[in-house]
Structure formats: C-alpha cells, structure tokens
C-alpha cells in the first residue's frame, strides 16, 4: 500500500519576542488510505500544530522551518496560497473542535454545503443540491431534504458536528484532519460521531488523522497511534501495542494516568512526568496541626450534608403575562444524604443540573424550595442567620476552570490567606504567612509560591492553589465541581491523588461532581446519576458500575470508551 501522506523531519517554529519556540521537532509520520491515525498528546505537545502545518494554516508567526510533507507523492511545501486553498477544499478535509464556530450562523446548512460542493466539484446548482442531500444522509441526518433549509442554531451540538463532517466530505477529499472532533460533545454523542468517522473512513477509503488528548477516543477509533510529547513524536505504533505495551517512559506514565472504568484502584500510579515540580505528599499530625483543628471538633451525629426536596427553575423568557413566561426546571426534587467522611459523586451529562445542585449547596444559588443541612444545621432557609453562616464556613468548593478561579491581580499569598485573615483564624500576620506557606507546601507547591502571581503557574499548579485556598477555611465538607476536567490526564491523576490523600488525612466529606464515569469510579463511595434535573439512581459506586439498575445508568456505562486495549489493571 502506498502512503497517502508522508511527513519527515518536520520542524515548526514560532518566533516570539522571548526567543523562538519550537512547537514541533523532527516529526515524522505516515497515513495510509482507509486508516485512522491517532495523534495523541497533552496540551502543548504540538499535536494541533502538526495538523495545521499540513494544510498550511499555522497561526502567524508560526512557520515550517524544515522537513518534508508529501501528499500523494507530491510535496505540499512551497505552494502558493491559491494552490493550498484548492488542496484544502478538494483533497484534504478538516473537522474542528467546536461545531459552534465552524459553521456560518447566517447561512442555511444547504447553502453552505451547496456552495462548498460547487466550488470543489464544479457541479451545477441542482446536482450540488442532490449531493448535499446525499451527504447529510451519509452522516446520519434524517429527513435531509427538509434539513437543508435549516440554520445551524436549529441543530444540537452533535448534529452540528455531523454537518461539519458533511462539509469536510463535500469535496470528496482523500485525507481528513479532525482536530479534537468530540471534545466539545457529551459522551453519548461522542460515541456516535467517532463511529461515523470510522465508518466513513472505511467506506470511502480515505485517510483520517485524529488529533486528541483523550486516550479513550484513541482506543475507540485509531488504527495506529503517534504519541507526542513537547513537540516530538516519542512513540509510533499499532493502537494495541501503544495502549497495551507502551515502550517509551512518557507513554507508560500517560497510560497509567488514565482513569480506569473497569475497576477501582487505591490510587493512581506515580505519573509526575509533567508536573515534575510537585513534591510528594507528606502526612501531617492531625492532632496538633493547624489544619486539624476543625477535624478535632466533636463530629456531630447524622449526615454531614443533607439535601431534601431541592427545586430550582431558571427563567428562560420573561413576560408580563404568566402564560408567556418560560422556565427551565434545572433541579427537580433532589434529595440525598452524605455521611461524614464519605465521597459522594454526582454524575450526569451537560445540562443535567449536577453543577446547579453543587452551587445551591454552596449557597451560590437560592433554591425555589427545599432544605440544605450542613452538620444538621439548616443553611438555606434563613441564609443570614449567624448559625447558618457559621455552618457555611465548614463547606468549601473547588471549581472547574483553574484559569478563572483565581483572582489574577492578587498574589498567591493573599489569595490563600484571605479566609484566614477575614475570619481571624490566626493570631498574627507572621502566623498567617507561616500557615499559608505550610498549606502551599502541603498541596505540593512549596512555600516559595506565596510570593508569585497566578499567571506564573500551570493549570495543575493553579488547581493546587485552589485546593490550598479551600483548605484555609478549615472545611469539613469539600465540593469538587469537575475539578480536573480542564486538566491534562497526567495532571488529573496527581490532583485526584492529592484530593484523596487530603480527604483521608483530614476526614473530609466530599461531594464530587463530574461527567467522567471512570473518574467517578476511582473517587467515589456512593454515586447519584442525574438527568434533566432529577436523580435517576443512587447506589454505592461499585454496585452502580457492576450492576446498574436504572436504564439511563446502563446507557451511560455502555457509552464509556472501551479500555480493553489497556491490558489488565495493575494489582
């Protein structure tokens, strides 16, 4: 079989004012017809850069410094912009991450498809329309004829991504480059889209490059895999070999960091290949340490956190007349108890209301009805009650996005010290500084971090700062709202390990919100499954995964990317 695309010794540079950044160094890879090549790596690995370099769409000032890119035997380098534009439409199709921005919102799906088909294939209007209809059917959109007149906003995210795929296929390309095609989609839609791409690849005998950070996607769709790390391809091979028996040290640690869906591990294997600066977790003496003060207080009887009959509707459309108002029931009769020291998970797809529940419990939203009790104290009925305020202090929250959860204009010292200073949890300023240094040390950052500003830290390090800030209030209950979904997989593993260590050491009660079932399985004792604002099922984690009762739970578990290729879990 001849190679469809051959890349050799590719160097991509980004000149900046602080010197030249080499985004790719000596990259070599090949793609054949009818084959899906997975290009996998963590953020900053240069995987998207390779995709952009092939089609000459590097963001300025990026440029190809050296190397060979041969497509069907002819070089793609040194082409004029005009020639490249023809190649991009006719012979190489592209699928981007966000279907929202890849489509023109002012034109109908039909107009966009017909325009592309006519430009690429030179057909007349009627023939192009017929082809557009056929394409929509091929990508699994029913009633294609009627849908051609629809605008992008009338489609759901998954449907839009199907349209983007149809657009990529419009010019009958020989190669498709898909950059994180399913990252913005829910798991159930992700599986469908991946199946579609794989089927199209086989049927049309085209080559596909899938750029992704997600090992699950790779396991499901790729035939061969290129693993990238810091601009270099560290390992290339068959998907079964890469996932099952990785050779390179980086690949091994990457695979070890992937949360397993098939069984629960006591903790993630050591994976600090990326977050190398983090120190090992050292136990503290809870009996004497500042952090332990709250843990030493007599633990009350009954559940640490109790929620009963929560309801909350958001107004979608205001109107003077009641019948014209539109509401969305975001949370519907949600009730559950969390025992002290337990990790309770809430899992669901986007829009299921899981984050809304967390925010109601944290006091950020006021429920329409229902009661939230922390340590037996009602905190939702009269929020200004001093007793309720005191109880609230025993609850802290860790947020999803480490880039927006820290105030960029404050030093780390002031961020972490804020609750200590405000609630006067320490005697003197010197003591405050000592405690902050201690906390930063404890979350694996080192006390020296206190002098610096948040922008000087990576995502995982910022999440550690968030954890230190949450601990500074000496909480008994910790809400983690998708704490690792914005992080790379190896960083995720270290953060999850840290959360587990802290919980065990301080006896924290944890409410863990995630859309990621494998992560839930690794972290939680009991799990609630949410859909459309209601709880479908609450069960101990192991039972939920081994013997799900609710239909929707079974559906979710079936959709999890298969990890069979990963080989048996370490014991």
């Amino acid at each position, binding site marked *: 079989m001849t190679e469809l695309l051959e890349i050799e010794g590719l160097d991509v540079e980004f000149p900046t004012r602080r010197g030249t950044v080499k985004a790719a160094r000596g990259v070599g890879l090949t793609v054949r017809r009818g084959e899906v090549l997975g290009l996998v790596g963590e953020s900053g690995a240069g995987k998207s850069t390779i995709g952009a370099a092939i089609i000459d769409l590097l963001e300025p000032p990026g440029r190809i410094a050296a190397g060979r890119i041969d497509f069907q035997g002819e070089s793609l380098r040194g082409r004029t912009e005009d020639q490249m534009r023809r190649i991009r439409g006719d012979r190489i199709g592209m699928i981007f991450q966000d279907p929202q921005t890849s489509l023109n919102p002012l034109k109908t799906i039909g107009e966009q498809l017909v325009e592309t088909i006519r430009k690429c294939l030179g057909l007349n209007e009627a023939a192009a329309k017929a082809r557009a209809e056929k394409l929509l059917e091929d990508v699994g959109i029913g009633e294609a004829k009627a849908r051609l007149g629809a605008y992008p906003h009338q489609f759901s995210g998954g449907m839009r991504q199907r349209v983007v795929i149809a657009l990529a296929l419009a010019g009958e390309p020989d190669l498709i480059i898909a950059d994180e095609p399913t990252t913005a989609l829910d798991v159930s839609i992700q599986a469908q889209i991946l199946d579609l791409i794989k089927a199209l690849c086989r049927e049309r005998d085209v080559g596909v490059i899938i750029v992704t950070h997600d090992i699950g996607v790779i396991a499901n769709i790729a035939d061969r895999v290129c693993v990238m790390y810091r601009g270099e391809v560290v390992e290339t091979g068959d998907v079964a070999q890469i996932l099952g028996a990785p050779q390179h040290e980086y690949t091994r640690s990457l695979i070890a960091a992937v949360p397993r869906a098939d069984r629960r*591990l*006591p903790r993630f294997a050591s994976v600090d290949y990326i*977050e190398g600066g983090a120190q090992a977790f050292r136990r503290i003496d809870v009996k004497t340490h500042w952090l332990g003060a709250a843990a030493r207080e007599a633990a009350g009887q009954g559940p640490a956190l109790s929620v009963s009959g929560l309801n909350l509707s958001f107004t979608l459309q205001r109107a003077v007349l009641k019948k014209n108002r539109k509401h969305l029931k975001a949370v519907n009769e949600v009730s559950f108890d969390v025992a002290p020291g337990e990790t309770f998970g809430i899992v669901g797809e986007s829009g299921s209301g899981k984050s809304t529940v967390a925010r109601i419990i944290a006091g950020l939203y006021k429920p329409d009805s229902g009661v939230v009790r922390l340590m037996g104290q009602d905190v939702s009925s009269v929020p200004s009650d001093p007793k309720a305020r005191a109880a609230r202090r025993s609850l802290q929250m860790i947020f999803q996005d480490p880039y*927006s*959860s820290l105030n960029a204009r404050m030093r780390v010292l002031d961020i972490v010290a804020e609750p200590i200073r405000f609630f006067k949890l320490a005697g003197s300023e010197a003591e405050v500084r000592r405690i902050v240094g201690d906390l930063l040390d404890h979350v694996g950052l080192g006390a020296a971090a206190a002098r610096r500003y948040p922008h000087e830290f990576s995502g*995982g390090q910022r999440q550690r700062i*968030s954890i230190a800030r949450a601990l500074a209030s000496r909480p008994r209950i910790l809400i983690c709202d998708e704490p690792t979904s914005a992080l790379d997989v190896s960083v995720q593993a270290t953060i999850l390990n840290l959360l587990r260590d802290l919980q065990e050491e301080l006896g924290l009660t944890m409410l863990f919100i995630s859309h990621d079932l494998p992560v839930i399985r690794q972290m939680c004792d009991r799990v609630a499954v949410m859909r459309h604002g209601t709880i479908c099922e609450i069960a101990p984690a192991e039972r939920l995964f081994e013997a799900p009762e609710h239909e929707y739970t079974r559906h979710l578990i079936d959709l999890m990317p298969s990890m069979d290729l990963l080989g048996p879990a*370490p014991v």
Partner: protein
Amino acid sequence: MTSAPDPAEAPPAPHAAGAAPEHQGRMGFFARLMENDVAYSFTRSPTAIIAAAITVLAILACFAAPILAPFDPFDPAQISLWDGKLPPAWTEDGQAQYLLGTDNQGRDMLSTILYGGRLSILVGLTAVALGMTMGVALGVISGYFGGAVDAFVMRVADVQLTIPGILLAILINGIGRAVIPAELRDDFAIYVVILAIGLTDWPQFARVARGATLVEAQKEYVMAARVIGLPSWLIMLRHVLPNVLRPVLVLATIGLALAIIAEATLSFLGQGIPPTTPSLGTLIRVGNEFLFSGLWWITLFPAIALVTLVFAVNLLGDWMRDALNPKLR
C-alpha cells in the same frame, strides 16, 4: 500498589510546556516593567510614544508655569495696558519679551496659555476623577447585585444620556451658580465647573463598569470568594474592582480629553471660569472678540494648545484601548 515508585524518588521531570517563565525576585523594576505586554506594545508604537511625550510635556510645562512663564498674568503689577494687543515677537511690531504677543489687557500670551492650560488640565483631571469614581461605584454595584438596583441606576443613566452632555453641564453649572451667593461666585466657579462636568460624565463610566462587572461576577474566583463567606462590599472592592479597571482606564483617558473640551466649551460660552483666572477656553473666547479686528494671535495660540493637548490625549487613549484589549493583540 507496590510497583509504583514514590513520587519523591522520581527523576525531576521538565516543566509543563507553555508555563510562564520563572520570575526572579531579583529582577529590577525596569526589567520587570519591560516584561509587561502593555509596556512592550508601547515601545513598539511610535504614535503612542509621540502622544505620550506631548501629553507629558504639556502637563509638565503647565504645572511648571510659575517657573517657566516669563510673566505672572495674575500679578497686576506686571501688567501694563500700554503693552496690550502686541503681535508675536517675530512679526514687525512684535517685542522680544512677548514671544507670542499679548492680549487686550497686556498680558503675555505664552504665560497666560501656560497658566490657563494648567487650570484646564486640573479641571479635566478632577472632573474625570469625580465622574469615574461615581460611575464605577454605581456600575459595579448595579452589575454585582442586578435586579431592582441595577434597573434603577441604569435607567437614571439612560435618561441622563438622552440629554446632550454639554447642555446638562450648562444646566448643572447654572444651578450651581444660582445657589452660591454672588460675592463668592468667582471663587467657587472652578468647583462648580468640575462638578458640572463630573456629573455629566458618570453614566459612561457606569455602563462600562457594569458590563465588565457582569462578566467578572460570573467567574469562578468571585464564586470562590462568596463560598468563603466574604461580605459583598469586600468582594466588590477587592475582587471585582481591580478586574474591571482596565476598560475604565481607557475610558478615563478619552474622558480626560472630553472633559478638557467641555471645560473650554463652558468657558467659551461664558458659563465657566471667569476671565480674571483664565483657562484655555476663556482665552479663546476673549480672543474671539478680537479675531475680526486682525488680532489673530489671541485666539489662535490657545486654540493650538488645546487641540494639540486633546489630540495627544486621545491618541494615547486609542492606543491604550488596543493594547489592553487581549482580542486585538
């Protein structure tokens, strides 16, 4: 789990790609300043450098007027009516000691422009400071709390914005003058003008601050502060305010230029600062009366000074808007 090595024994791995460079505490102030993206963009923009140079020079010259100016236009002893209406020094009838000529009362034009410019800049700065403080405070509060407070504040702002700014300033100015007893009117004229311009300015600041607050209040660091249990005023002051200041500062720069113009307009209309303590606007008005008798220099030089100053400040504001907007970088 015995197979996993202790993280402490793992070899030190390289840092995450894309992480910010390590900043050393030893780095000098200037070096740190140059690391800053805004400072970098400044050194790359000739327009910004020239505009900043003109602005700084003008401000310095005006505030150093008592030292730089050859005469003191407020000192009756130095004014001689015999020297009135003299043309600039380079013309036929000009005298060397009066570089830009003299006005109808025999005051040296250069000195009056320097002193007048000082007053114009001072009025502009304080008026903008007043409008900004008021507007930002109201904007942040209405953006943070929303609901009825927001609706009330923003409707008041909307109503005020339907009235042309200069008319409103004249109105406030008129009311202010009417309230003050006649004998004190001239002494308080400056403060009334500042108040009039400041009160006209605030809705712009309130709108910008409110918009930025709406975005910031949804961010997770504000939620984190709320979960910690900090009171609203502290969250607004410590977390929201510093993060909404960027667009406000841009507006303040452009607002400074507008305030200087507003002051000049008020004075030109005879509503502002009395001719005994002239500002640029007053000078232009006085000169205007003599323009058609051929005494062009009395109005031209203050006008050039005003236009140059406003133009430079505006250019600076434009550059700042682009430099501080991450989308345009």
